[in-house]
């Protein structure tokens, strides 16, 4: 009764987002819509730090669709001059920026019920969930895959305990590191990493959408 009441007060954009999860259509590796994304933040403290930009691109089968991509920059009061060197986003830059709420509206409308993919996904997902909490909204409902974890299932991984940085994977997979440390650039690179990992896995064993989520020793950044 209480949850029903709470739900009723959610804004329309959240209701619309929720609707997508009622669709129980079965998907396999070739038909499922993945959204590979990355966030640039003011720092690594999930409570204090804020998201500066989100970049995302959709993957279906072996194809990334540039037309189905998202790139948003957020207005934040918090400014950390130490991380500017990494992401290059200035407080008063020329880029058009959205309020955090508006960014969430766009992001939810874009991801729908896609399977989210990110490198060390737990951090990016938590950062989004923190934004949602600030708007008094529940956590993301999407299934999530972490390329860092997925990589450990491949034969290329030599140390199961190590945390592989995106840069290391780029070197291992021979990927050009253009636009590293922009949300969109990292999302794109993560997309390529994701496709290469899937190819690696399919080459060595039977790989299904379901088997991607199976992980005996789950271990993320957090």
């Amino acid at each position, binding site marked *: 009764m209480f949850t029903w009441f709470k739900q009723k007060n959610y804004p329309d954009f959240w209701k619309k987002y929720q609707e997508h999860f009622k669709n129980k259509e079965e998907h396999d590796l070739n038909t499922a819509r993945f959204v590979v994304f990355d966030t640039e933040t003011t720092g690594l403290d999930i409570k204090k730090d804020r998201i500066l930009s989100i*970049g995302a*691109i959709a993957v279906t089968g*072996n*194809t*990334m*669709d*540039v*037309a189905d*991509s998202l*790139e948003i*920059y957020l207005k934040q009061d918090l400014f950390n001059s130490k991380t500017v060197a990494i992401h290059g986003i200035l407080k008063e830059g020329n*880029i*058009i920026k959205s309020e955090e709420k508006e960014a969430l509206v766009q992001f939810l409308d874009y991801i729908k019920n896609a399977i989210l993919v990110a490198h060390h996904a737990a951090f990016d997902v938590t950062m989004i969930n923190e934004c949602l909490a600030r708007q008094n909204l529940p956590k993301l409902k999407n299934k999530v895959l972490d390329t860092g974890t997925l990589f450990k299932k491949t034969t290329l991984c030599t140390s199961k305990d190590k945390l592989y940085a995106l840069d290391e994977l780029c070197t291992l997979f021979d990927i*050009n590191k*253009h*636009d590293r440390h*922009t949300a*969109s*650039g990292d*999302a*794109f690179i993560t*997309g*390529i990493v994701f*496709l*290469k990992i899937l*190819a690696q896995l399919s*080459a060595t064993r039977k790989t299904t959408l379901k088997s991607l989520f199976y992980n005996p020793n789950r271990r993320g950044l957090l």
Partner: protein
Amino acid sequence: MKNTIAERIFDFLKDFPPFDVLQKEELYTISKNVKVVYLQKEQYIFKTDENIHDHFYVVKDGAVGIFREEDHTLVDECDEGDIFGLRALIRKDNYILSAKAIEESILYSISSELLEKVIHTNAQANKYLLASFVANIRNPYSGESIDSLFTQTEDLQKNTSNLTEVQSAQYSKNPITCSLNTSIKEAAQTMSSNRIGSIVITKEEKPLGIITDKDLRNKIATGQFPIEDTVKNIMSAPVITYPKNITVAEAQIAMLQHSISHLCITENGTLNAKLVGILSEHDIVVIHGNNPSVLIKEVKRSKTAKDLKYIREKAQQLLEGYITQNVPIFFIAKVISAINTTITQKAITLSIEEMDTPPPTKYSWLALGSQGRREQLLLTDQDNALVFENVPEEKYFQTKNYFLSLSDKVTHKLNTIGFEFCPAKMMASNPQWCLSLDEWKEQFNNWITKPDADKIMLCTIFFDYNLVFGNKELVNEMSESIFNAINTYEIFLNFLGLNALKNPPPLSFFRQFLVEHSGEHKDQFDIKARALMPLVDAARLLILSHNIKDFNNTVLRYEKLAEVEPQNKDLYVSCIDAFKILLQFRTQQGLRHGNSGRFIDLNTLNKTDRLKLKGCFKPIKNIQELIQVRFNLSQLL
């Protein structure tokens, strides 16, 4: 809204044709809608007979092989920036070939509909795509958009329409003629009633000789011949003939070269064809200073080999100017070879003046190889030979020694001028190539009836001779003897055919490699051996097999072949286009690097160059296939 990924794709595409000619906004719209496809090694993009996709592909990273499914032949290899799958643009039929990743690859897939929307106004990009497409279809001379295959030639013709030198000369049609036994008086009356300065003597509509005002003044008014004589006695013969499309500059050169004021225009430009017009000096209005004709005048005035060297250097500048102005290559070849011929003629007359006595008998100086074919644009080494009239045995050594020392002087002069000595000593100063008519006949007969690899090689050089100076009759007799020998020993043509096939063109380019049919790779491309010579050899073989005399220029040979074999016209026309493009390419390379332009470093070729060259390989492959079938060479190979 900022789109980092699209910007990165834009940055990649903008360097490759046809995207390099698109407007910034056009290309950005395309970039925003690209799909990025990841392929594992051996993964197919599409297979033969599959329905065409609604997009085509650009290789971003890796490499894609295009295969013919029936026999698993590799048709092409595509690397970074290469486009494939363009069949999607014509939206009909299924894929003819299969495409498979031969390395792990990333492709950009572009919607054909979107591209069409964006570039329907961009003719240049459109043309490039068409050319790419045609270069990859199975049968390039099937008539399907043959016009757009060689985009370069079209551009050339368009660019030069305002150049007076290359405009066709306007000649007088319906020329006034008379027969051989017309009296001089009658002929003169016809000339005055028609108010013309010349009359052509014809037999069965073919021009035999010409009488001009000058002949009447010099030969009749002086009392040398009575006016009751027939025109036969005073006419100048043979006449100089040219085809209908002669250009102003060519006409000027021809008149200066032969010191004449009238040219006969015949149906096909030879003596043996119907007379269709007369072109007189008067018809040519030279409005502005004309470089080639000025140079030829200077040649005639020059006194030493050094003067000639200076003129040859100016000709080189003229050549460079023509190439940068994109003047049609065939026209350039005509002008430059006319200048070279005139220079050689002058070198010979200067040498004769240095001799103690005039030549003891009739003789002819022959240009061989590319000079003989009038296709020599860059300064290469000299290839020449000399034939002299048969003399009684006791006079033979004396005569031969005379011509050897004359040739020695000429070849030294040519060397000074810039035509370096032939390293293989294929020069008239070599006793082997300074022979009497009978010796030449015997030599040719020996080459033809007892061919081996060396003799066949000599045939490919010597059979492309062209008279530069001296007696025409001797040369005609030499040609006769070649054709007679071939007629009695036809298998010679099969040997010549084998030789024409010894250098198949490469398939394509791939990174810094040539893609060979056999799979052998090289990083330098020998444009002469692998592309120009196969076309030259094929033209020579086919023209000899048809028993056609007096055609020793590759373009003219193919034109003639197209005429006698109308069923193969498209193929021969594609060979002409390919030959012109290759010759221009070689000349450009040679000028750029100050060498013969023969070896091309593949790293210096951009996508457009590669595509242009690749378009030329197809006709070569096709003409070689025709030769293989026609001369039953498959069992000999």
